[in-house]
C-alpha cells in the first residue's frame, strides 16, 4: 500500500480533492440543513404572507403581499423594491450560500483537518478549486430547491402562476434562474476568499461576507430580472467566472502566506 497522490498530475490531484470535499459535504449535516432551509423558506414565505396583507388606503381592504408565485423569484422591472416582496425572495439564498461557504471552509481549519490536507498537498490551488466546485454545486442545489419550494408554496397559497402578468415568459424564467445560479459563483468566491482570511475565526468570515454581500445585494435584481435573456446569462456567467478566477488566485496567495494551523 502506498500513498497515491500524484502531485504532478493536476487532474488526479483535483479528482482526489473533489472526492474528499464531496464526501465531506454529504457526511456533514450542514448541507442538509441548508438544502432543507432552501426548500422550506419559499413555502413559509408564500404561505405565511398569504395570511398577512397591507390595507389598501382607498378601499381599506387587505391586499395580499404576494399575488404571483414568480414574485418569490424576482421582478421583471430589474429594480429592487424595498418592500417585503423585494427582500424576501430567492435572493436571500445568496446570504445563505455565503454563510454555508464560511462554515464549511472554517470547519476545515477549526477541526485541524486542514493539517491533513495541506501536509499532503503542497498546491493550495487544488483546495481552492475543489472548494469552489463543491460549494457552487451545493449552491445550485439550494437555488433549484428554492424554485421547487416556491412552486409548492405558491400552490398551497393559491397564488397566480401567470407568467405574462409579471412580464415574463417560460424562457425568461429559465434564463433568470440560470443567471441567478451563475451569479451565486460570485458569492461563493467572495465567501471562500474571506473564509481563507478568517480560517478558524468563522464568525469573522461570516461577518465580512455578509457585509460584502450587502454591497452586491441591490445589484442582483438588476442583473437577474424575471424577464432575463441570454445576455443576462452570459453576463452572470462571465462575472461568476471572473470572480472565481480572480478571487481564487487571491485565496491561493493568502493560503501560501499564512499559517494553516
Amino acid at each position, binding site marked *: 500500500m502506498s*500513498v497515491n497522490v500524484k502531485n*504532478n498530475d493536476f487532474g488526479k490531484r483535483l479528482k482526489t480533492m473533489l472526492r474528499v470535499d464531496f464526501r465531506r459535504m454529504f457526511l456533514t449535516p450542514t448541507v442538509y440543513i441548508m438544502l432543507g432551509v432552501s426548500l422550506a423558506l419559499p413555502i413559509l414565505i408564500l404561505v405565511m404572507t398569504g395570511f398577512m396583507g397591507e390595507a389598501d388606503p382607498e378601499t381599506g381592504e387587505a391586499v395580499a403581499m404576494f399575488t404571483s408565485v414568480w414574485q418569490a423569484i424576482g421582478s421583471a422591472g430589474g429594480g429592487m423594491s424595498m418592500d417585503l416582496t423585494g427582500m424576501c425572495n430567492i435572493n436571500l439564498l445568496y446570504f445563505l450560500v455565503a454563510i454555508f461557504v464560511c462554515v464549511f471552509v472554517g470547519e476545515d481549519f477549526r477541526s485541524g483537518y486542514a*493539517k491533513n490536507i495541506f*501536509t499532503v498537498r503542497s498546491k493550495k490551488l487544488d483546495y481552492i478549486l475543489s472548494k469552489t466546485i463543491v460549494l457552487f454545486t451545493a449552491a445550485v442545489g439550494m437555488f433549484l430547491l428554492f424554485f421547487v419550494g416556491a412552486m409548492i408554496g405558491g400552490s398551497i397559497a393559491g397564488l397566480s402562476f401567470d407568467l405574462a402578468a409579471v412580464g415574463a415568459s417560460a424562457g425568461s424564467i429559465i434564463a433568470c434562474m440560470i443567471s441567478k445560479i451563475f451569479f451565486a459563483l460570485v458569492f461563493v468566491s467572495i465567501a471562500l476568499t474571506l473564509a481563507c482570511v478568517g480560517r478558524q475565526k468563522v464568525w469573522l468570515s461570516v461577518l465580512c461576507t455578509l457585509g460584502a454581500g450587502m454591497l452586491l445585494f441591490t445589484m442582483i435584481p438588476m442583473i437577474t430580472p424575471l424577464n432575463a435573456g441570454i445576455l443576462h446569462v452570459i453576463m452572470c456567467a462571465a462575472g461568476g467566472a471572473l470572480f472565481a478566477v480572480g478571487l481564487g488566485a487571491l485565496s491561493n496567495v493568502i493560503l501560501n502566506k499564512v499559517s494553516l494551523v
Partner: protein
Amino acid sequence: MNAIEIRNLHKDFGEKHAVDGLNMTVPEGAIYGFIGENGSGKSTTEKCICGLIPPTSGEIKLFGKDHKDGEERGKIGVLIEAPGCFPNMSVWNNMKLQAANLGIKNENEEIRRVLHLVRMDGAASNKFKNCSLGMKQRIGIAFALLGDPKLLVLDEPINGLDADGMRIMREILLDLTQNHGCTVLISSHILGELEKIATHYGIIRGGRLLKEMTAQELNASCPTYVHLKAADMNKALAVCNNAFARVEFDEERGEIRIYDKLSAEEAASYLFGNFGIAVTELGTAKISLEEYYIDLMKEGK
C-alpha cells in the same frame, strides 16, 4: 540520502524569532528524537517541514528535493498537536476522508489495518468527540500511518497514552523503521520513552539546534558514575567531596554519585579502608538522556 535536511531555517512571528538559523539533518531510516523546552521551536520547525507554515527564510529538503515538491509531501504522515478530525464525524468516516485525500485504493482494508495496529478496531464507529484523550492520540497515530508513509512527523505523540499505548507506539515505530524503511521525526518531553527507540537526537533551544548526535554518540557522551549509600551519609559525602573531583548528592534517591573514573569497589574500599565508613549500597550507572539533557540546558543557561 537524508530524509530531512534543513539549512539556516528562520521563522519569525513579528518580533519573536521562533526558529533562528536552525540546521538539521535526519538520515533516512532514523528515529530522530527532537528534544527541547516548551517554546523552543520544535513544533514550529515541524510545521515548516510539513508546509503548514511558511518559513521566513532558509531551505528545507525532503529526500533531497525541496519541501514544496508535491511528490515528496505525499510521502509524509503527520501528527502535530492533535489529530485533525471532525469532532461530530465517526472515526471511520474521518479516516475515509483521509484515505480519499491520500488517494488510497483499498480504503476499507487500509483503515482496518491501521486501526488494528493501534488497537482501535472497536472505536471505528465512535464519534471522534466522544473518544478519550488516549484514544484520540492513538487514532491520530493511525491517521499518520495511513498509506505507509515514508516519513512520519510526530509532535508529542505519546502524550496521554497509557503504558500499553506507549509500548504499542514503540513497537510500531521500530517496525516501521526497521522493516519498512520509514523515517521518523518525533518530539517528546517523555525522554525515558524516547531513549528506548531513538537512533538520532537533536536538541533545540531558542530556535537553534544546540546539539545533533547519534544514539552511540550520546552513549559515549553520557558519563558513568558510581552511586552509593553509606551508614553515615553526611560523613561519606564530606569525604567524597574532598577526595573526588565531581561528586553529587541525589536527593531524590538519597545516594551519593561519584563521576570520577574509578570502579565501585575502589570507591567502597577507599571509604571503608581510610575512614571506616561502611557502604550499604553500591553500583555503577550511566546518566540517562533526561539527565544529559538537563545538564546541557543548565550549561546553556
